[in-house]
């Protein structure tokens, strides 16, 4: 595989394996001053996008100050809303840390949504068919199935890239639509609940439900998994040979080639890892929140993950606060819609704007390094 890639690069007939994403890949080590600078950058991007969004709120005839106050209260107002927000953050963090690693290696994997969708299908299938098993076996099995399914889904565009030169952006994007339709297909076919008004699977047996982290709230243990994933990825990225190889691939292709690092293997590995993490995100969502597979459960998750990875400046550890920010934002936005009547789709506006501002700022900082 790597041989054919080398040949491709020598001939220069197609684009290089790694897209010219210089402005996405970051620096090589997390210095304290750098972390501070990037934190400032994230806060600036968020502030700017809130200011611009306030204009749109004004356009729709509502008071932006009141709307944002309602958003803050909605996000932090009660134990229930905090639990809701943490649950929301969980799949974002899981998928986001995978995306951050991909982007670091200049692999633009934006197939999170499809990978989450098939992860959810696989976990649901295990949860529904293994009803005789006790919870301590069933839950890990279901999550494992989700991660395998997510990785397998990511393997398809990865293989298309490595063997046929199909760019992973288009490959993963198109696979998203197929993955989401696969959920509908499963629910209208073998896994659907007969007689339900909405396309959904039957309720999972109770031993397959993720246990509550704090009894009496909806907060499930998924957030623990997310924190573990972040810690492992942070350590792996900065302190292992594998992480070093990823960083090498991300910084310069030629250096990686001289060091004998296979770009193809790095590409495949990071795609599979991100797919597996997204699959776990899908599993956690169905096992911990819905207790069943429902149509459209993964809507927007994959793009959220990209937004979070960017907001974190592609630093695995920073994905956690960035993911929490988006989780609380979403919880707050739902309250804002209820109380003030500002459509909750405003969060997509905020997300899109935040991403664009971060990208612009990353572009500038990259320019500063060059000069």
């Amino acid at each position, binding site marked *: 595989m790597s041989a054919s890639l080398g040949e*491709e690069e020598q001939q220069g007939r*197609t*684009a290089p394996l790694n*897209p*010219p*994403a*210089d*402005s*996405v890949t970051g620096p090589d080590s997390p210095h304290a001053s750098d972390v501070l600078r990037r934190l400032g950058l994230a806060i600036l991007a968020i502030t700017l996008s809130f200011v611009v969004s306030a204009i*749109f*709120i004004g*356009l*729709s*005839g*509502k008071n932006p100050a009141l709307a944002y106050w309602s958003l803050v209260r909605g996000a932090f107002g009660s134990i229930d809303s905090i639990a809701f927000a943490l649950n929301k953050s969980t799949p974002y963090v899981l998928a986001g840390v995978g995306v951050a690693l991909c982007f670091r290696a200049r692999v*633009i994997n*934006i197939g999170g949504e499809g990978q989450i969708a098939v992860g959810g299908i696989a976990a649901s299938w295990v949860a529904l068919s293994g009803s005789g098993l006790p919870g301590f076996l069933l839950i890990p099995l279901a999550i494992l199935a989700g991660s395998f399914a997510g990785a397998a889904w990511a393997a398809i565009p990865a293989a*298309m890239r490595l063997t*046929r*030169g*199909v*760019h992973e*952006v*288009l*490959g993963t*994007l*198109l*696979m*998203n*639509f*197929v993955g989401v*339709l*696969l959920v*509908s297909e499963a629910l*209208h*076919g073998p896994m659907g609940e007969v007689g339900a008004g909405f396309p959904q699977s039957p309720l999972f047996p109770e031993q397959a439900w993720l246990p509550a982290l704090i009894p009496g709230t909806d907060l499930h243990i998924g957030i623990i998994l997310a924190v573990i994933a972040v810690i492992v990825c942070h350590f792996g990225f900065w302190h292992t040979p594998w992480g070093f190889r990823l960083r090498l691939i991300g910084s310069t292709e030629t250096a990686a080639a001289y060091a004998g690092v296979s770009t193809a293997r790095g590409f495949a590995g990071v795609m599979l890892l991100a797919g597996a993490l997204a699959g776990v995100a899908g599993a956690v969502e169905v096992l911990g929140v819905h207790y069943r597979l429902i149509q459209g459960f993964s809507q927007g998750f994959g*793009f959220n993950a*990209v937004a979070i990875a*960017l907001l974190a400046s592609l630093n695995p550890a920073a994905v956690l606060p960035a993911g929490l920010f988006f989780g609380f934002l979403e919880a707050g936005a739902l309250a804002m819609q209820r109380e003030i*009547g500002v*459509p909750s*789709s*405003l*969060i*997509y*506006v*905020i*997300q*899109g*704007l935040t*991403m*664009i501002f971060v*990208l*612009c*700022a*990353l*572009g*500038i900082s*990259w*320019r500063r390094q060059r000069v």
Partner: protein
Amino acid sequence: MNYAVLIELLSASIRIATPLLLVALGGVISELGGTFAVGVEGMMLMGAFGGAVTALVTQNLVLGLLASCICGVLLGAVIGVATVKFRADHMVTGLAANILALGLTSFLLRGLFGGKAPVMVLPTIGAIHIPWLSELPVVGPILFGEPLMTYLAFLLVIPVHWFLRHTQAGLTLRAVGENPEAAFSVGANPHLIRMISVMVCGVFAGLGGATLSLQELGTFTDGMTNGRGFLALAAIIVGRWMPFRLMWGCLLIGAASALALNIQGWGLPVSSYVIQMTPYLIALAVLCGIGRKARMPAAIGKAFIRN
């Protein structure tokens, strides 16, 4: 398959290919200038939204089409400023623009109409039967009984091809996409040219969106483009960045979709969701088939740095 079904099928292929073709023509202008056109999905959605809302408020289709161009250009300008001025990553900026468009259209659809999405039943752009020609057997009903935007899209292939291949401006555009330093050394302004090419792409993609909302469906719903912009990107690669070839790419995806829709009526034991996957699967399969033969503009996605 009888004669009437075949005519209906071919006619439907052309109709489905129309928005894809408009978007792909815009995308090829952007990509030959060196800017990845991942944002066309969002431009298309903005165009569909602007067209539908303007047509609803003014009851005027021409104003609707104009608004769709403006909305597409606005998003194009955002992408252009980010990628050209700030050297942001093209792929991810395009993706961010798509999310922004999704949020903005969904938000404004409710916000501008007092909190609830209005019920939209718009008059659609009707079919125009060209006298004499539409009465020809077979080709008549397929080629000369189509709605306005379909004629426009397919006719636009010719000037876009001519512009790219046979004009000074087209040559300069392609030079900027291949080697901006060289273009700059002979007096072209790569930043300006890229900015303009992305905004022109917005015009085309906006019209493609309007085709969807004003000609095909007569309404606007959240995220209604549903990946059509990405299919157009696939068609560009299949057409190797050449207008006439990408037209065939669009028609191929159109034909696959039309066939899939038609199969639903045959009562075969295939679920509608599997059928809905067809255009995406066909696009992926064709991309795999094309493989390494596709050659992108050399400087696509690379920022131009003036030394």
